């Protein structure tokens, strides 16, 4: 399990970094999205991989780690998901505005002169 997820995170990171270094804005936005999946999964995995642990408490009872999933990384990732959505939206709008202003979708706002 750990190995699969670790490899998955590795592939997502590799693809994301590759796209991050590409010259077209659309490639970069896809790369950032892939990278944010990888990072979210990584943060999530710091709580340990548990199948079948209860995510929700019994009414009136305090929970314990023996039976319940670790809520802290989950809360962090929930926040991260929303923020990465916001970043993607902002970046998309920026790239559209830059594309409208400069007429190109190169990340530097101009085609390479050489």
């Amino acid at each position, binding site marked *: *399990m*750990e190995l699969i*997820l*670790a*490899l*998955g*995170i*590795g592939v997502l*990171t590799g*693809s994301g*970094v*590759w*796209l991050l*270094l*590409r*010259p077209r*804005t*659309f*490639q970069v936005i*896809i*790369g950032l999205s*892939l990278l944010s999946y990888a990072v*979210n*999964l990584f943060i999530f995995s*710091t709580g*340990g*991989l*548990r199948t079948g642990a209860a*995510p929700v*408490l019994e*009414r*009136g009872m305090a*929970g*314990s*780690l023996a039976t319940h999933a*670790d*809520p*802290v990384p989950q809360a962090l990732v*929930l926040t991260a*998901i*929303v*923020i990465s*959505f*916001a*970043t*993607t*939206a*902002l970046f*998309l*709008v920026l790239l*559209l*505005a830059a*594309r*409208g*202003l400069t007429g*190109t979708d190169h990340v*530097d706002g101009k*085609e*390479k002169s*050489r």
Partner: protein
Amino acid sequence: MSDALLLLAATGLPFVGAIVAGMLPTHARNTAAWLAGAIAIIGLGLVWAAYPTVAAGGVIRHSMAWMPSLGLDLVLRMDGFAWLFAGLVFGVGALVVLYARYYMSADDPVPRFFAFLLAFMGSMTGVVLSGNLIQLAFFWELTSLFSFLLIGYWHHTAAARDGARMALTITATGGLCLFAGVLLLGHIVGSYNLDVVLASGDKIRGHALYLPALVLILMGALTKSAQFPFHFWLPHAMAAPTPVSAYLHSATLVKAGVFLMARLWPVLAGTEAWFWIVGSAGLATLLIGAYVAIFQNDLKGLLAYSTISHLGLITLLLGLNSELAMVAAIFHILNHAAFKASLFMAAGIIDHETGTRDLRRLSGLNRFMPFTTRLAMVAAAAMAGVPLMNGFISKEMFFAETLTAQGSVTFLLDILPFAAMVASAFAVAYSLRFIHGAFFGPDPVDLPHLPHEPPAWMRLPVEILALACIIIGLLPAATVGPYLNMAAHAALGAATPEYSLAVWHGFNTPLVMSLLALAAGVTLYFLLQPLFRRNIEGPPFISRLEGRRMFERSMVFLSWRLARTLEGLLGTRRLQPQLRLVVCVAILAAGWAVYRRGLGPGNLVPQGIDPVLALIWAIGAACALGAAWQAKFHRLAALILLGGTGLVTCVTFVWFSAPDLALTQLLVEIVTTILLLLGLRWLPKRLPGTGTSEVMRAGRRLRDLAIAITAGLGMAGLAFGVMTRFPPEILAQHFLERAYTEGGGTNVVNVILVDFRGFDTLGEIAVLGVVALTAYALLRRFRPAPDSVDVPEQQRDQSAYDIARPERREGDTVADWLLIPSVIARLLFPVVGMVALFLLLRGHDLPGGGFAAGLMGSIAMILQYMLGGTQWVEARLRVLPLRWMGLGLLLAAGTGLGALLFGRPFLTTYFAYADLPLIGEIPTASALLFDIGVFALVVGATMLTLIALARQSVRGHRAAAPRATAASAPAAPVPVPAAASAATPTAATGDD
């Protein structure tokens, strides 16, 4: 009055006054002057009230806890020495305020001037009353800052700006050194408390860090006191209004440096290093300042250099390592303040009444302002050290000290008396030049104003000070004797030597030196007459040695050339190298950590491999690789593959017991995909490879591939390492135990978000709101690139199809496009809305919550936009995203503030369960209100972004249409949606 109140009032009142003066109307000259004068007088009264205690050898202290954990207290402390300085600050301050009232023009914003002056007065008081070294450094920097503002008061002139900037650069740099030195000193002693420091002289002088600490502290003191080679800022600070010069450069700012040296004299002085640094700086400054002063044509310039010279004298006295010299230094500080302040004021009067300060134009003013002439003569005589004046007595003491100075450097000691005499002769010469040049000789010709006596009140401060010069000169022991004695005892303690303050000590060597210097000075002045008549600029021989030019060159070098060179070497404006650098640095940093700490196996045995999950991740990895590959060639395919990876992530969350994450991820996935789909329309077709050769491009790709693979492998290894170790449990346990008992919800993740870490969530939704507003603002002025303006190919085909058929009209196909899905979507609208509501209400106890519900709600609406078309929806459904956002933020913040009303901390939750008929038990924690706020904001923000994007296709065509028809007038302004329509974006479509 209690000591604490006295000290706090003395330090705080000027600052309070500064704030009040700053808020007065621009032309409230008299009010501001009354205020400033009253505060200076009150300050003087407070200082006087402390006299009985201080005179008895007592020290007034008040300390307040500042950072108790670091053992730091704010300490205000007044002993005899500080008393003398505080009296000087307030006393001269009061006189300067009176003078400034008449000097400043009614056209200037005078309240601002007095605000700065008061703030400076407070900072200066803070310096002299500080009982903590760090606090002293703080007030020290404040004096630099406010002197900057005062010097630059006439900021419309370039000279004032340059002078202010130079003064700030030099003194603030010195201040930084001082701070470092003070930290070292505190490290040596183990305390920053001045009392403790003053008691640890031997420990400090014997410490290995003594020299660095000494050099750093002296850097601060010498820059502040304008000592060679840092002296050049002072003449340029003469661009300030004259009251400022009279205050800053006689009694306060520049005296802060010698104050500090004298304050720390008992613990820092007495070593060879001190003698060398302080003594030689003082000697050089004394001679150079006096020499240059003779050749100044500007009255204030002459006074500035003479100030430098006298500060050099004081510094030299401090550097001689003798207690008697220290007493002489304190005495001269006092005397110099009296005669220099009055001379600056006299120069200001001349400037004010004649319109010029140029000695080459001034002459014979004695006939026009005889009274001012007498006053200036008294002060100048004191400056020259003429017998029966106060300057004479301290100069005598100085001469006596140069004769008896002790030290290992015999060469320096041998020349000291001669150097002192030469400097003294120079002082006589420039004093003569000041008086003779301005007040005597033929009548002046062609002055800007006809000179006359100033208003009596303007002259009063000069009269008081000149009187002080004479009285102290005649009866030193009876007038300043007790105060000087008190200050010397406070500074030196038991080591205070015996000394006698008297005009006549018999016919001894210092008196002979004095008389010789007087004669030499007068002779020198008359010998130099031909030189002055030739209108020389700057002093002979060393006129090229200009500190200012070096300063400016180094400034240009630092702020321009060096910056440009470094930018050229290290900077790039291209994104790719920057990102590459970031990624590489991250990899290297991680690699370095692994190399240093090793990467051992984890302590958890990995769980077995589940074939289903393996299969799912095989798909996920394939999707990610495919997206990476297709992002260049086929954007839609890349987007679909990206969605695939997202789904796999989502499944992973479910798999590992995180339903909340899975839900949110799923919804975010949908909204992100829609968002990117809407953006695809405006991206250009792929360009064929540009000029670069195939080999180079392949090389670059190989390099990036290597980086990507390294990053991927590293991340995989890191993730595996983390997952095979026991996770830390403390935090998790804390939240699991308290989620229900204290947060009132069973969904721990949700409780963390809306309750325990509610403040973070509030910040997060604020970020979301800002992003949405930014997106809206950017898209409002969006103009598509020319090659994206045309109607898309598909729509053109559809129109062509319509035209080809006689029974159809153009646009029919577009109108009917996706008819059945759109009908279904309309039917689904209430259902999806209900799901959103359901997710919202159950969020506290079961997976769901404000984020998920908000995303669901916006999906309900965006579905209508996608399938029904923008115009169709907006004709029927008015979504007001900005109102949603505002409501959400208000609700979330209001819930938090509500807790304050009940006396609980911000965002504390109140909870109970309500039993509603039909629906059943629902949690009615106040967290629900907060969550509703989150919900409303997420709906608003998402809709604002999506609608703004979706509407581009409508706007784009409309913008293109007039452009095509009226191509001859491309400059015609495109209508911008009115500000009012921003709140109701639906109306904005009408404008464009």
